[in-house]
């Protein structure tokens, strides 16, 4: 795959890469990070984009225990959805392998994917480290 094709890769390719322990993000020439698919940096409009490896761990910035879910996640509730800072980009994921009451802002997590209860779309998950 050429660099030009790389930077246009979509969300599915991103999840596949996460699943393969090869997670990436998109960086513009001004150093702003974002997630695919991108043809322009959402922060500055720069169109010179390249894929970079996602740092291995991030820190939880905010979290919530969802008790009333969408239908797709009905089998999981209550569950924790969190936003975690990975440096150049920030991600939203389900926190797994942890009791809800043990999740704290500032905790270190890694990314992975997990099948949703419906099984049709993998979900981005955070695993405590």
């Amino acid at each position, binding site marked *: 795959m050429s660099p030009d094709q790389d930077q246009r890769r979509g969300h599915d390719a991103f999840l596949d890469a996460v699943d393969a322990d090869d997670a990436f993000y998109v960086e513009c020439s001004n150093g702003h990070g974002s997630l695919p698919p991108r043809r322009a940096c959402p922060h500055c409009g720069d169109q010179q984009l390249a894929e970079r490896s996602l740092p291995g761990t991030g820190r939880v910035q905010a979290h*919530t225990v969802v*008790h*009333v879910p*969408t239908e797709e996640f009905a089998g999981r509730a209550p569950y924790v*959805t969190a936003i975690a800072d990975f440096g150049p*980009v920030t991600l*939203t994921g389900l926190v797994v392998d942890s009791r809800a009451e043990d999740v704290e802002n500032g905790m270190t997590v890694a990314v992975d994917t997990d099948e949703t209860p419906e099984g049709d779309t993998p979900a981005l998950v955070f695993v405590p480290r």
Partner: protein
Amino acid sequence: MSSVRVAGVGLTPFGEHPNRTTRDLFAEAGVAAMADAGVDAEVIDAVYFGNFVGELADAQGHQGPIAAECLGVDAPATRFESACASSGVAVRHAVRAIESGDADVVVVGGAERMTHAGTDAATGMLATAADALYEVSAGMTFPGAYALMTDAYFDAYGGSRRDLAHVAVKNHEHALENEHAQFQFSVSVDDVLDAPTVASPLGLLDACPVTDGASALVLVSETVAREADVTAPVEVTGSGQGTDKIALQDRESLSRTPATETAATEAYEAAGITPADVDVVEVHDCFTSAEVFALEALGLFEAGEAITAARDGTTRRDGDLPVNLSGGLKAKGHPVGATGASQLVEMTRLLRGDHPNSEYVADATTGITHSAGGTVASTTVHVLEECT
């Protein structure tokens, strides 16, 4: 540039109308607004209509023509969709059409119908205002999104669920006499704190209800108001719109809402006012914490200061800056596509003196309305002033 007058307003009762159609709801509000304005269908130059999830709730797209024909109007009609700010954005464009001279008489409003779908389906529909790729796919619901913002706010500035509970208590109290409100009953701080958790730290009584309803205004140019002798004592003197990244994860801060700041700055400049000139406010309180975020982004409170405003009485109807005298989305209800325009309906009535809570703002001359879509990714702010 022509000034813009509010000639007439109309609302349905907000609440559960599972057996009524969206077009019937909008017809009720629109016909009421036209009657209030004293204008006939043939003088209307355009219809601007806000709706969020018509495709999902009613299997009906292309609602602009329906919005016109249900009022008996033969004029260009457009639907606006900006999630919960849909009719706020519709008002914004109606105002600009009149200011620019493109139109003299516009009907603008919105309608939504969701209660018939049930809580699970409604939760899914509302979640479509968040980012499908990166947020909903990670289990984010709409209350969950605001819960994350609230968690970040508490981390940054402090505050408690008890502080937020006072926002709910206040807005329920304000809705007691509002004949259009969905919830015309009081709640206590303990009621709010003891309610089931929806998405921590937010509970069921921190959240606005799922609502059916419609709103409409007739906006006219100053020329029409004068020449046709239309009574229009309230003027829209400022309009602003802002946009942010749709996903929370792409924002600079989880606890600030800069799209509101952008819209407010534009609206204040157009009206030639500052936050200090504002007498009364209607903000988008889809959750108790949303009222706090809005008041700070509108420049009415410093960052971290609005969290205690309901608890200390500042924003109560007898306080220095009454906020959500309608009851807000929290108690008046939130028929999503109708909400933004409904705030201008309520503000118009407050300023012209025929609102159940007008007595609390008898000396007010300047009010603002704030509409927010998604997690404040789409915003409008309007300044309304009593004509002197």
